[in-house]
């Protein structure tokens, strides 16, 4: 009978928890996020980054053009961020790196969203043996720390850009599936669903009208929140040589290449470093804004 003490807000970097507040109309949710100061800035930053990644490389010099006479040149008018060990323009490589790093993360998140949604809704609505099996599978995948499992799969397949994408996909779907499953499973007990059933709605109408929109919204929001950490994870593993391979311009590999000559050319970390930090900043700001505006107590 005691009133609940206080809700614990799990504010982890994984963006888990406090999720059900996002089920409500997402169009209006994003509008509220944009009204939030941090959310506005984060979204704007994210849009800018995306634009830079898409358009930037078209406007700059060739990132693969080597010029060994001009190795490790300091930033100048001609080379805004200097050149690397092979004389390639750092600015151009940073912009193309944005494409690679951000693109890889988006690819992973897109696939993971579809798989997570599909499996989760299937498990939640089918129930019985199918649900038990799928749920166990989710638990096992979630029981292995993400980066560790990704390492293992890359080990199986061999280091490459594509294999890293595959590995991160296999690692990433389970959390989203759990969300979708929980939402779908609880649906039959919801008062509004019971009312719909009593009014004569059939299972399909309930599924498409009441259950799926919420599940889609939930999963989309959850996966959007994880874009930042996905970019970092991808870059981190590429940094170790397990993802994108040279000469591909990718923020992680660029940071790795800079290690040897850091003493004489410290400016090398500016491009990829700032890129990564801005990405995480945008992601964190948007995540914080989402959490703030979907607090259970915040009714308009």
């Amino acid at each position, binding site marked *: 009978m005691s009133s609940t003490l206080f809700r614990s807000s799990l504010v982890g970097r994984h963006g888990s928890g406090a999720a059900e507040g996002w089920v409500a109309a997402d169009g209006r949710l994003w509008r509220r996020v944009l009204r939030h100061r941090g959310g506005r800035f984060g979204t704007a930053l994210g849009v800018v980054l995306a634009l830079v990644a898409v358009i930037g490389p078209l406007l700059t010099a060739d990132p693969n053009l080597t010029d060994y006479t001009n190795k490790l040149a300091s930033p100048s008018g001609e080379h805004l961020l200097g050149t690397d060990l092979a004389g390639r323009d750092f600015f151009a490589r940073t912009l193309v790196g944005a494409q690679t790093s951000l693109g890889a993360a988006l690819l992973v998140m897109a696939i993971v969203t579809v798989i997570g949604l599909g499996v989760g809704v299937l498990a939640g609505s089918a129930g019985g043996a199918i649900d038990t099996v799928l749920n166990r599978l989710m638990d096992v995948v979630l029981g292995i720390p993400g980066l560790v499992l990704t390492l293992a799969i890359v080990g199986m397949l061999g280091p490459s850009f594509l294999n890293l994408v595959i590995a991160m996909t296999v690692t990433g779907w389970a959390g989203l599936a759990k969300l979708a499953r929980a939402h779908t499973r609880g649906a039959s007990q919801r008062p509004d669903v019971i009312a719909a059933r009593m009014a004569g709605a059939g299972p399909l109408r309930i599924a498409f009208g009441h259950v799926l929109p919420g599940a889609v919204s939930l999963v989309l929001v959850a996966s959007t929140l994880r874009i930042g950490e996905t970019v970092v994870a991808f870059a981190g593993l590429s940094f170790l040589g397990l993802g994108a391979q040279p000469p591909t311009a990718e923020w992680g590999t660029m940071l790795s290449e800079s290690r040897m000559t*850091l003493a004489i050319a410290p400016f090398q970390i500016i491009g*990829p470093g700032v890129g990564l930090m801005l990405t*995480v900043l945008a992601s964190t700001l948007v995540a914080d804004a989402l959490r703030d505006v979907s607090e259970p107590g915040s009714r308009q």
Partner: protein
Amino acid sequence: MASRVLRRLAQALGTLLGGAVITFLMLAATPGDPAERILTAKGQEAVTPEAIAALRTELGLDRPLPVRLGDYLRDLVMGDLGSSWSTGRPVVAELGERLPATLRLTVAALGIAVAVSLVLGLAAAWGAGRLLDHVSRTVSMVFLVVPSFLLGVMILDIVVVRSGVGVVIADGQWGTVLLPAITLALGAAASWSRVLRASLLDARAAPFLMVSRARGTTALHRMVVHELPNSMPPFITIIGIEVAVLVGGAPIVESIYSWPGVGRFTVQAVGARDMPVIVGFVMFAIALFVVASLAVDLLTAAIDPRQRAR
């Protein structure tokens, strides 16, 4: 309480078992002939087909899959993780030698993260809405935004190169653990401090805090006696979950600093497609995660008397 412990233990065992099955499947599915790789790694002059076949039989690679799974699990329980495909030595030996270094790193990082997050979180909640809060949250944000490998590279540059120290000694011992541990810990600390701040403010909004204020207590009394203890369950819970992140971050940090731990060894193993080593590391990570979750669960129950009653 006892039934709760038993239930959690059963759950833990289930996770370990599931992880073991998955790792077995990954091992079995990896292309390449394990026997051939081991023999080559051991440096035999004549890696003949007969030798390979003999080793295959010895390792039980010809038997049907379910039987091999059984063999694998049995070996696992008895502590046999197979042989490394790059060195030919037993995986348990390779990992075992390097495990203490990783444990020192992880424990040090955990300690630093808890300390820093407590300081930042308490400061932010104490000065909620005022300058102290904003400063603390900005600091947290900075730590949060810098990926660990970027931080490591920057630290190495500043500490080693600029200051002319020349080289960072990373011998896996407590004496040199500070820099790698800080690199590993800062991102986690930032994340945890935000959780702590949120929990503290949640507690502050609870009715019993209002009643305490109405009795005339000081803010410090309320923070220490009421807010902090009530924030411990969610704080400890998130730490338990994030131990997994710390373990996952170890390979990267160890590689940057050349810290002689299992993480760095595993990264090398990934490059060499040395699955037994990788799988051994996976099992280690799962076990660590399971232990941490169990500890957190029991600790939370011990703190909150309401849970004990159930």
